[in-house]
């Protein structure tokens, strides 16, 4: 427990808990340069499993605890702890078998598995993003997890649990630097903050989203009518119409709390989260499509939300839930456009010539028909829609996957058709609705040609190579 002198840092390598204790096995590098995750990881997994253990024990022995009193409670707690110990033991075996390293081809390799051995090889040339996150329990241990995403349909996500926060950050920069074609010892790229969202703005913006505000208004009406008619039947419905939006607001508030965006040579770096801090880096040239969303009640402040499609990220998280990938949850128009300029340089929405839906489209879309339009320039295709909540979607020609023209019976009667420009899975869908049928077809044909030409000139796979 001696204080390390200036020159004794190697002996201090495992002392990341600040307790002056060095765990055996930390920082292990074998002859082939393979590395292990932090030796405390099994314990983190074990502690994380405790709540599940309690739930299982309670579910199986609820009646017994009541009968036996304090003794039963003690037994229940010991059983839950035993569950945690078993998870720790199992994860210890997993830890012994888990190695990660960079191989000679420049790929990121991970070997893992206890009974079923798994060897995974991630091609860093297809890297989409690297995230560092600190789940709640891991944060108590000052640990972090690293999630690596490459482009691909299945099994394109890999999670390393757990490393110290510094190690995790260093690993992220190393992966990003290697993917960018730089030397791997280039060090962590310096970052400059660009934008942040205050908790107040976040809370207000979430409450004033069109669906939320609408449902809350309905709730107030229901409560009002119920009280007037002095019956109680409506309160059950009010609980649902009022409770659901409030739940969504709270969830999103916790998720996007303290949202900050910073510019680093690796790309845009987003940090956010209250219970679980997440870091997401979006390398330039990996943004597939962008959407500006502008709910009615945000307009007096000129606020917008910016959603993006990033190949391989965001459409589903580890639990299979749909996740919205955001550039920023709420910002003024100027800040949002500045952010978008960094991922799509040269975007000029106001300078584009908009081709609007014809007047007869009002019979198909009576409210939003005036805003329905598509536009394009040399590098992007754009579509706008929505009167109450305004939406503007943008996709670079080089990111166009395919183009579709569709026509329902009602559109057919009015000689209208919709054109869809397909992007990788994500929250953004690019659709030019209810255009003149022939115009829609011509736009689709031309978009296919523009996509082909743009792709031939696209060289953003290893963006920093040769620098």
């Amino acid at each position, binding site marked *: 427990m001696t204080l390390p002198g200036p020159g004794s840092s190697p002996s201090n390598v495992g002392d990341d808990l600040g307790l002056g204790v060095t765990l055996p096995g930390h920082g292990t590098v074998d002859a082939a340069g393979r590395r292990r995750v932090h030796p405390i990881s099994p314990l983190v997994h074990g502690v994380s499993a405790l709540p599940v253990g309690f739930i299982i024990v309670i579910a199986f022995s609820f009646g017994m605890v009541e009968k036996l009193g304090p003794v039963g409670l003690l037994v229940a707690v010991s059983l839950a702890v035993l569950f945690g110990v078993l998870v720790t033991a199992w994860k210890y075996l997993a830890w012994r078998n888990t190695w990660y390293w960079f191989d000679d081809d420049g790929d990121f390799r991970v070997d893992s598995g206890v009974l079923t051995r798994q060897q995974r090889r991630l091609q860093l040339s*297809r890297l989409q993003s690297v995230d560092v996150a600190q789940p709640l329990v891991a944060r108590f241990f000052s640990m972090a997890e690293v999630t690596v995403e490459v*482009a691909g349909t299945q099994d394109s996500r890999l999670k390393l649990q757990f490393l110290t926060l510094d190690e995790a950050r260093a690993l992220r920069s190393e992966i990003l630097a290697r993917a960018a074609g730089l030397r791997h010892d280039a060090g962590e790229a310096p970052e400059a903050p660009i934008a942040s969202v205050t908790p107040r703005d976040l809370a207000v913006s979430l409450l004033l989203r069109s669906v939320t505000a609408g449902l809350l208004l309905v709730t107030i009406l229901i409560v009002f009518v119920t009280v007037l008619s002095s019956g109680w039947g409506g309160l059950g419905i009010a609980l649902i119409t009022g409770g659901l939006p409030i739940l969504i607001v709270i969830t999103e508030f916790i998720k996007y709390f303290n949202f900050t965006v910073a510019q680093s040579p690796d790309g845009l770096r987003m940090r956010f989260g209250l219970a679980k801090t997440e870091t997401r880096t979006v390398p330039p040239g*990996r943004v*597939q499509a962008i959407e500006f969303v502008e709910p009615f009640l945000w307009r007096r402040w000129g606020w917008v939300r910016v959603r993006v499609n990033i*190949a391989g990220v965001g459409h589903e998280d580890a639990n299979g839930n749909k996740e919205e990938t955001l550039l920023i949850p709420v910002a003024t128009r100027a800040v949002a456009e500045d952010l978008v300029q960094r991922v799509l340089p040269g975007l000029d929405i106001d300078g584009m010539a908009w081709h609007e839906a014809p007047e007869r489209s009002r019979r198909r879309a009576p409210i939003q028909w005036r805003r329905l339009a598509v536009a394009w320039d040399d590098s992007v295709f754009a579509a706008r829609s929505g009167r109450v909540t305004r939406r503007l979607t943008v996709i670079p020609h080089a*990111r*166009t*996957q*395919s*183009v*579709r*023209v*569709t*026509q*329902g*019976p009602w559109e*057919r009667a009015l*000689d209208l*058709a919709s054109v*869809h420009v*397909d*992007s*990788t*899975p994500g929250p953004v*869908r690019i659709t030019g609705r209810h255009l003149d*049928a*022939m115009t*829609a*077809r011509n736009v*689709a*044909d031309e*978009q*296919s*040609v523009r*996509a*082909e030409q743009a*792709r*031939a000139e*696209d060289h*953003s*796979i290893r963006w920093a190579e040769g620098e």
Partner: protein
Amino acid sequence: MADRTKDAFTYADGWTAVSPTLTRARRLTLALVYVLVIAAVAALFWIPDVPVWVAWVAVGVAVVAFGWLWWLIGRRVRSFGYAERGDDLLVSSGIMFRRLVIVPYGRMQLVDVKAGPIDRWLGITTVQLHTAAATTDASIPGLEPDIAAGLRDRLARRGEQRSAGL
């Protein structure tokens, strides 16, 4: 006006139609489903609590639906068409909800050729194209196996020549 609507989903050099065998395959599938429908309707006559007139209405509905679906299958199959252009593939389909998909060759990630048991028995296959977008949904059913294999090979070759990253 009707003529212009037609124009939006046509192709100047003409669509390549799919095999009429697809009509037979789909009508056969319909007939197999109807074995279950007939069994269900017949059961209505045997359940004591159901009035006989309800069972007869069910028979009527089933017969009308069968005729309509039979006719619809024929029209739907005739609506399928594809065309290989210089830089992209066009696939057109649908009667009530019409669609036209344009897939640039360089964006194709995968070309599947597949056939179910009935399709195999009648000797037709489906060619399905995949891009990095989940919404692309370009499949051409009802192709004879040698035509399908030829199409797949041509598409794969063109895709390889032009392929790019995401």
